[in-house]
């Protein structure tokens, strides 16, 4: 155990900037992603998609496909040994449809064949007869009693609510009341790697799947349920993951189940790799929201009441919608003190592509709503956007919309001051006004801020495990139930192990996740990995250190509590070991020795039968929630952030260019500076796409686009210079005080940009994305035709 530290500079590894531990494999092409795994004798799997967004299945004829040469299996719902559905909240997501199809990504049959081409041909030869049903495509209309039902129980997926104080009283005390409607669009995760999996039948009648999975344990549960196998015979291994952003969960469960069904049927490995088109068609998206905000404030700008009604499009299946919308209710007011709150979030089933987790998890939508609203309120009050925010931001001991008293350092004000100071907000605003009177393109500047609950909160069980195994040469193997999906978890957890064991990061090998090695740690979501896996890793390391310290103490002849573990050496803490021992050989007989290589110590321990392996388990502090009132301690702690964007708007064409971006986040403690910066830059770029071009457009349940030629992501030419100001208010619960960053970095970028655009235009646009047409004409694309005569 490292000596007690007073200052954070005492950390050896934490807070440093290190290259990702897997970077060399990735720059050389050695890293193996889902589609890079092949096995001898493997077959290729393909799916037969539904041809209608909503229809009853009358018959499925696979006879022609079965008879094609090279086809090894054609399966339908009748071939499923277990349940034909899965799902965390509502287990109704169908693996192979039997009676009904609910969206175009539903699958009615699957094929395994000797080659991709034969599989594709076989799929085309399957004929399905349907009775077409009316399509439910609007989430508000879906809740009308006259709407056709997507699921037997009706179209209401979930209704989440918050009741705090009495909004009637609040509005009656208000001197200014605004009512506004905002809307956000459906967007795609657009991880660069399309879903891929290899399923192999095991020797014991079980199954092993290796692929691009984000949440191994929920996928394993789905597999066990569908295949009717005990969990112990289902093994899920994570291949190097080419991005996920929340996206490779249910979509991967479906793919894994299908590949596994084919593998068990044929007794051969089956590989299934989605094309981008399949991925776009089938994989879930971020919920589009329609939001009604009513806000009341007194003349001085203090908020009195907020009433919020939101309709979310859940699409064909529940997936994570109940949890996503729950987070929205907690964050819907924004990071402000509002004495009276009434929030209702409804998610409705439709025949659109289903929606579930995506970076932000119900926050990017409400952040756009609340942050647009605050700008509008400021204007109405004749104040500037900063002033009205600072008047109302949460502070230490403030009570949130859900009635939670904040008992830690609340830094939303600090974050706002950081970005507005760095971006010279008020000065820039004033000089832009002058510029815009006579010059073109118009300039604008906008701000946004948020608070965000860390980890899962009252959403569910919140615990995670990490194993650490010290090797007899002093190297370390670590493995976590929460995974690296490109966000750098492997590096961050390695850094914490390095800190605790006093080894250098290069001595640590972080293994890809595997359900057979580690206990269910819940999903890698909610920006919980550094926090939860970090705490678990520390516990495992501390346990090992506890066991080997007595041996070290005996060998070095010094008290247990004066041992220092650092740089792969163990020494008496009075020794300076910062730069290692150099070439001096450290062996002078037992008691006389001053330092010892960690590897030597590990060897000695091993020889004495001391276990060098430990499993750390961390359970998050308790939260509470009353569903009736929507009140409780929703999360055990929160993070705070603010963004500032500067834009140039060509008002003649509607072209927006983001010219500068400032991002400030309280992360508690920066664990890995490189990783932390990467999260912010990436989050800003994703928020920029959300603000300006991305939209998964659908018409009557049919997507108008299917690939990156029409679904436009930001390129290197579109991103602004981004400055970052990290705030470190160590949290008493977090590892080294760290909290979370992945999602906060993303959720408020779009509203900052939107506010800047509106500032430049002198006009409010209340819908995303801010396409050229919407900025110029004030309305979005109708996207009437898939491809018109002006297309290629």
């Amino acid at each position: 155990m490292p000596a007690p530290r007073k200052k954070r500079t005492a950390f050896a590894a934490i807070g440093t900037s290190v290259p990702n531990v897997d970077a060399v494999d990735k720059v050389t092409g050695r890293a193996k992603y889902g589609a890079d795994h092949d096995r001898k004798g493997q077959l290729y799997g393909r799916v037969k998609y539904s041809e209608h967004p909503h229809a009853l299945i009358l018959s499925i004829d696979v006879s022609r496909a079965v008879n094609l040469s090279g086809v090894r299996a054609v399966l339908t719902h009748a071939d499923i040994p277990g349940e034909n559905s899965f799902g965390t909240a509502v287990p109704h997501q169908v693996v192979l449809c039997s009676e009904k199809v609910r969206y175009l990504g539903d699958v009615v049959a699957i094929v395994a064949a000797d080659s991709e081409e034969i599989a594709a041909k076989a799929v085309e030869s399957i004929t399905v007869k349907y009775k077409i049903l009316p399509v439910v495509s609007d989430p508000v209309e879906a809740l009308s009693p006259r709407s056709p039902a997507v699921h037997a129980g009706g179209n209401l997926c979930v209704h989440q609510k918050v009741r705090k104080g009495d909004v009637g009283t609040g509005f009656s005390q208000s001197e200014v009341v605004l009512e506004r409607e905002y809307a956000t669009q459906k967007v795609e995760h657009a991880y660069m790697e399309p879903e891929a999996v290899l399923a192999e039948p095991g020797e014991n009648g079980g199954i092993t799947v290796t692929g691009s999975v984000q949440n191994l344990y929920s996928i394993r549960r789905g597999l066990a349920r569908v295949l009717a196998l005990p969990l112990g015979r289902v093994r899920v291994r994570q291949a190097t993951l080419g991005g996920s952003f929340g996206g490779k969960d249910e979509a991967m469960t479906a793919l894994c189940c299908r590949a596994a069904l084919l593998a068990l049927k044929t007794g051969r490995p089956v590989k299934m790799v989605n094309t981008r088109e399949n991925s776009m068609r089938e994989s879930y998206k971020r919920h589009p929201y329609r939001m009604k905000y009513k806000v009341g404030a007194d003349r001085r700008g203090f908020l009195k009441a907020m009433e919020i009604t939101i309709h979310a499009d859940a699409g064909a299946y529940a997936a994570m919608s109940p949890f996503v919308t729950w987070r929205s209710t907690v964050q819907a007011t924004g990071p402000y003190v509002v004495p009276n709150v009434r929030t209702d979030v409804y998610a409705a089933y439709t025949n659109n592509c289903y929606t579930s987790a995506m970076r932000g998890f119900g926050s990017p939508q409400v952040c756009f709503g609340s942050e647009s609203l605050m700008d509008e309120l400021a204007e109405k009050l004749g104040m500037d956007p900063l002033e009205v925010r600072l008047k109302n931001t949460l502070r230490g001991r403030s009570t949130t919309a859900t009635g939670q008293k904040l008992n830690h350092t609340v830094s939303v004000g600090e974050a706002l001051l950081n970005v507005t100071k760095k971006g010279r907000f008020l000065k820039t605003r004033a000089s832009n006004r002058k510029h815009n009177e006579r010059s073109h393109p118009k300039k604008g500047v906008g701000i946004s801020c948020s608070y965000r609950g860390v980890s899962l909160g009252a959403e569910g069980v919140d615990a995670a495990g990490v194993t650490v195994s010290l090797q007899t040469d002093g190297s370390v193997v670590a493995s976590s139930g929460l995974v690296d999906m490109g966000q750098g978890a492997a590096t961050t957890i390695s850094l914490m192990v390095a800190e605790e064991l006093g080894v250098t990061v290069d001595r640590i090998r972080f293994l890809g996740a595997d359900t057979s090695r580690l206990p269910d740690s819940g999903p890698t979501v909610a920006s919980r990995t550094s926090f939860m896996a970090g705490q678990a890793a520390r516990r495992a390391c501390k346990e090992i250190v506890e066991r080997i310290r007595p041996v070290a103490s005996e060998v070095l002849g010094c008290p247990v509590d004066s041992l220092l573990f650092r740089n792969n050496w163990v020494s008496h803490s009075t020794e300076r070991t910062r730069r290692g021992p150099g070439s001096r050989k450290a062996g002078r007989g037992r008691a006389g020795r001053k330092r010892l290589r960690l590897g030597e110590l590990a060897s000695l321990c091993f020889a004495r039968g001391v276990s060098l392996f430990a499993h750390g388990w961390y359970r998050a502090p308790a939260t509470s929630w009353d569903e009736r009132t929507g009140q409780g301690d929703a999360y055990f702690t929160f993070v705070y952030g603010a963004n500032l964007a500067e834009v140039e708007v060509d008002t003649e064409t509607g072209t927006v260019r983001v010219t500068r971006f400032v991002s400030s986040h309280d992360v508690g403690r920066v664990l890995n500076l490189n990783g932390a910066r990467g999260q912010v830059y990436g989050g800003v770029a994703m928020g920029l796409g959300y603000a300006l071009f991305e939209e998964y457009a659908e018409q009557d349940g049919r997507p108008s686009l299917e690939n990156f030629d029409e679904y436009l992501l930001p390129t290197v030419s579109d991103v602004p210079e981004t400055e970052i100001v990290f705030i470190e208010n160590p949290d008493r619960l977090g590892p080294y005080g760290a909290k979370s960053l992945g999602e906060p970095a993303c959720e408020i970028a779009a509203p900052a940009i939107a506010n800047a655009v509106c500032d430049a235009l002198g006009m409010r646009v209340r819908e995303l994305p801010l396409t050229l047409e919407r900025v110029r004409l004030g309305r979005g694309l109708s996207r009437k035709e898939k491809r018109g005569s002006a297309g290629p």
Partner: protein
Amino acid sequence: MREASVIAPRSLREALRAVGRKGVVAVAGGTDLLVRLHDVAAGERPSFLVLDGVRTLHSIAPRGKGLALGPLVTFSEIERSSLLRTLAPQLVEAASVAGSVQIRNRATLGGNIANGSPAGDLLPPLYVLSARLELSYSGGRRQVMIEDFFKGPGETVLRRNELITRVVFERSQNRGFFLRLAVRRALAISKVSVAANVSLRNGRVQSVRIALGAVAPTVLRASRTEEYLLGRELDRDSIETACGLASGEAAPIDDIRSEADYRREMVGVLLGRGLLRIASAR
């Protein structure tokens, strides 16, 4: 991939002999063709006539007062040609904003023409440079003006047994431009594009050609606008009128990429910007 056959001729003669055969599709760079084939998941593959090996189709050479380009000249080669930069700046500008480096390194002039998309970036410049296409077949060839080449989106007068073997055009007049609008700053298909080729004498428009991209089933010459501008000085009034006329000449539609009224308006905006640039450069 299925037993698709490939013909890889080394000479134009060989190529022309093969092009008429049933099920044979000529491939220049392949950047559009392979995208289209990607969309047809399991369809029968055609036979490919891969033209890469025919050296004579790659040339950039002066011809008379103008230029003759082989159809296999890539966007990147156009972008980097100093000859073209002087003689056909509109074409160079269009080639340099299209697609990405990877696409420009493979996409060809001939492919862009044969593909027949009204959003094809090289087409408006070719219209204003009065490009003439040489279409060859086994035993002969014919010449077609670029404006007569397109019948509709993706439809051209190229016969099954013909190849575009040369693109000939005049050198640009003393003023010209190519402007376009797309969602992103790179790697995006144009919502609207405008090319012009203008000559001024004593401050007045002596000749002018304007072509509009992505606002009609084919690229469109704004002939009424051209007529109006002839003989006029380029000032605020005349430019404004020209922009209004050009917007009226466009016949855009709503599609996934944009809205008709937006496109129509943008024709005027882009033309206005280009003409202003010319006027102020005097």
